[in-house]
């Protein structure tokens, strides 16, 4: 540790030209923040002794301000000498404020300021009493914009966010709170690295075998989770989630097996693998749908691929392209207003439902992943001729199975001309396992009658997927 800091600081500040804060330094070297503050000052003085002006510093100053300038209304004086004329110039309009200030400012106000070294003297002068001072950051030259320093905070969150702060307080000297603890029954383990986490999902696709706990993938950087290392859990972090996992997994797989039953076997297998590949926790991440595809492609091409995987991928890409074209076509139709409102509604419904589930159940992650992926509609799941009506999305919440199904309901509404119109509407409702499935309405008969009566009425219980497979001839 002895001189490690010098090497690090020289490398970072002098060579790379990046700012460094005491916090970042303490994280890098795993030392107490107060030691880091001293290291920064040490480096600062010694470097500048060697070569004046080579390192620029900013300071965190804590002190009691003189009462006069303590008010927030005109308070930017103390840190900046050039602003001081503001203070002395009388404000005729703020007389009432003045009176209050007199009352409030009987005691000096404690103030914390981050200042650049250029303004340090002025700041210290303006203080009535200095409580604490330390180097906040070092940077190669004067800071144009103080907010640049926030990149260090960002870096800490990115790189050291995974550290469990319930443990690290001893090292860094954070105030310890013995009563704070992670909720023991949290369905989702705390996820300290938000940005990185969602990527491995895509990158890990080609080769990974199904494993009982896909969770372990989660905290790895994308490099680590490359295909050739299947689930090499360095530190399996999620012990809490593990118990829920085995239950979820088979169910989801069953569901996909059944709903893709009519597909060619390879495809079914692939989708199965895919579902298993999606770690259960991703629902919390900002969904990166726009960039997802790009990323996937770039990355996969770099990664070593087996012949099989390559073939698969090419096949899939080709499929995807075809589907995309088809979809574009369809959506053009939609824009032209030719397509029925119902189909659109259906998509929207599904999207909302999945949103809701995201909110309600953490365990419903499988489903959510599904939604985040097929929401942009350019995915391969789209064209599957899924089983028509009761589209159960069974998920496990605690020990009860829950899902949603579509039911047909009769609704009577008044239309524009004041007539009462009765419609059959498909609606989503949630059910849990112990409730019986409602009887299937006699779909064909009703469908015939309504379809004749009104244009754009719901066409039975066909799912959105069926819409994509064979575009009805009437549309063309």
């Amino acid at each position, binding site marked *: 540790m002895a001189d490690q800091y010098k090497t690090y600081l020289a490398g970072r500040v002098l060579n790379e030209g990046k700012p460094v804060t005491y916090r970042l330094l303490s994280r890098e070297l795993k030392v107490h923040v107060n030691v880091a503050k001293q290291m920064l*000052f040490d480096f600062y003085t010694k470097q500048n002794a060697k070569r004046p002006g080579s390192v620029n510093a900013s300071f965190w100053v804590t002190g009691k301000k003189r009462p006069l300038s303590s008010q927030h209304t005109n308070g930017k004086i103390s840190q900046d000498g050039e602003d001081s004329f503001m203070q002395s110039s009388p404000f005729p309009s703020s007389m009432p404020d003045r009176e209050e200030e007199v009352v409030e400012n009987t005691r000096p106000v404690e103030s*914390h300021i981050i200042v650049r070294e250029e303004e340090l003297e002025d700041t210290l002068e303006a203080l009535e009493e200095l409580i*604490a001072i330390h180097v906040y950051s070092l940077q190669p030259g004067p*800071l144009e914009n103080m907010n640049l320093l926030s990149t260090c905070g960002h870096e800490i969150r990115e790189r050291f966010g995974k550290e469990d702060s319930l443990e690290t307080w001893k090292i860094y000297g*954070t105030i310890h709170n013995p009563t704070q603890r992670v*909720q023991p029954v949290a369905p989702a383990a705390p996820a300290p690295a*938000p940005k990185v986490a969602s990527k491995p999902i895509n990158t890990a696709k080609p080769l990974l075998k199904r494993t009982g706990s896909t969770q372990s993938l989660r905290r790895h950087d994308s490099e680590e989770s490359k295909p050739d290392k299947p689930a090499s859990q360095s530190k399996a972090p999620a012990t809490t989630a593990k118990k829920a996992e085995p239950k979820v997994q088979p169910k989801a797989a069953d569901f996909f097996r059944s709903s893709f039953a009519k597909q060619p076997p390879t495809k079914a297998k692939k989708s199965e693998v895919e579902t298993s590949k999606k770690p259960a926790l991703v629902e919390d991440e900002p969904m990166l749908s726009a960039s997802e595809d790009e990323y996937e492609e770039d990355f996969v091409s770099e990664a070593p691929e087996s012949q099989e995987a390559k073939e698969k991928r090419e096949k899939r890409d080709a499929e995807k392209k075809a589907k995309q074209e088809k979809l574009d076509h369809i959506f053009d139709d939609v824009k032209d207003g030719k397509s029925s409102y119902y189909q659109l509604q259906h998509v929207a419904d599904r*999207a909302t439902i999945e949103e809701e589930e995201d909110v309600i159940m953490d365990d419903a992650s499988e489903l959510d992943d599904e939604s985040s992926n097929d929401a942009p509609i350019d995915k391969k799941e789209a064209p599957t001729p899924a089983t028509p009506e009761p589209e159960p999305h069974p998920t496990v919440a605690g020990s009860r199975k829950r899902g949603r199904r579509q039911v047909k309901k009769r609704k009577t509404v008044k239309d524009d001309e004041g007539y009462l119109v009765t419609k059959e509407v498909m609606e989503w409702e949630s059910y849990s396992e112990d409730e019986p499935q409602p009887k299937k309405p006699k779909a064909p008969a009703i469908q015939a009658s309504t379809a004749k009566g009104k244009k754009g009425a719901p066409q039975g219980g066909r799912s959105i997927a069926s819409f994509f497979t064979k575009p009805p001839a009437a549309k063309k």
Partner: protein
Amino acid sequence: MADGSGDFRQCSPFETDFPTNERSQSAYTPLHTFDLPRGADKHYQQQYADMYFLRLAQLKPAVEEQAEEAWGNMKIGTDTPQHVDRVLDVRQGIPSWVVGTVFVDMPLKPNVLDDISKDHWISAPPTRERYTTDGKLDMMIEDESGRLQISGDSLDTLGLVTGCVIAILGHENIDGVFNVIDTKYADLPRQPERWEKDDANLALSGGKIKQRRARADRIAIISGLEIAGDSGNDLALDMLTEYLIGESSDPSRPEGSKKISRLILAGGSLAHSSPIPSREEVSAKKGHKKYGYDSAAYDASPTARLDTFLSDILPTLPVTLLPGVTDPASVAIPQQPLHAALFPQSRALANSPAFKNDPHLGFDSVSNPWEGDIDGWRFLGTGGQTVTDVQKYLDVDSTLDIMDAMLRWRCIAPTAPDTLWCYPFQDDDPLIVKECPHVYFAGNMPKFEVRTESGPFQQTVTLISVPKYSETGIIVLLDMETLEVTHIDLRVGESKP
């Protein structure tokens, strides 16, 4: 450093021996006064008239008591003023007093009927800072029987707003206008003793009432973090984190940040997140339709930043989070707690719904307004909308006057549901103050102010108006033994030389 001066300007050899700082814990009992029924039990079909009825019915006895005491034996000329039960029973020329709800008609005030009629052909006018004009106000008092126009020199200076329940003394003149001589309000309700609730809970659960409790530390209140997701005020937020977790400055000194035992975020944590755009708005805004996540329509970075901020400080400091006017909660008060789905990281340190009354809560996302006991004191706090809305009616600058008046009217949101959106309460109105708090704070106020008010029965309330952190850098600190309020400010030095 060795002398404890907090000066870390020191070259090697380094001082490496630092005491560990341990945070004390505050006794925390949130009350779920403002929690709305969940799911299907939440209805919006009710009429708002019920709220006014309810408010009048609940406050009338208290107001009458005050009025009776003041005017019961008073003589106006030779007459004793009569108590009239309903406003329409007031007789012309006879001195009398009556209790009712004030209604202030202002030309600039938004009117829901106008809104509906104009809805179809103009865009909505911008919301106003103030509804006040120079002209005379049209003031009325109403109860379930009807309305009575009131006038009087004293009325303008009193600062009455729509929805407060008062008693008025005077007589009706030939024009049918009631000339007001004096008014009375309900004044502060009963104030619980310190620790009353906790002791009662202990007694109920069979525990022994503690005779001595550890000395309580301080509470920090911040409002208006206004995280916008850009890097504009990121350093200020980092600064706040570092101060609160005690890595910067010198936390071990007696008044350092280790003495803060809980942080209250009083609304406005996000900058532009409310109202949440409706499905129609989203679809109308864009030319093309895209289903699922669309980065153009929704930017997650502010919430993600708030989440990381919370998860940074939560391991050392418990947080109570109130939503505010710019936060993605419901727009109608009482705003319900910000949903845990917004906090994927920090919610691991929150309590699960099963332990809602666990006193060791780390992260408590609560309603706005919010009521609860901290270290035995009763706290009542809002994100500020209630105060700002009343301010639109009046020409007062000090928000503390408004807060004081609201407590004395015993209604913390008198202008709801007239100009402030509000849930249509049916059976009980939680916005009526039933127990006087010890501390009443409002977030997102224009400036930092503190005042202690007292009531007729030795109630003392500390009123705090908390300014926005993003504008002032002010953290309000409240000593939990003496209820003394101090503040500190955090600031990033000017960027320009």
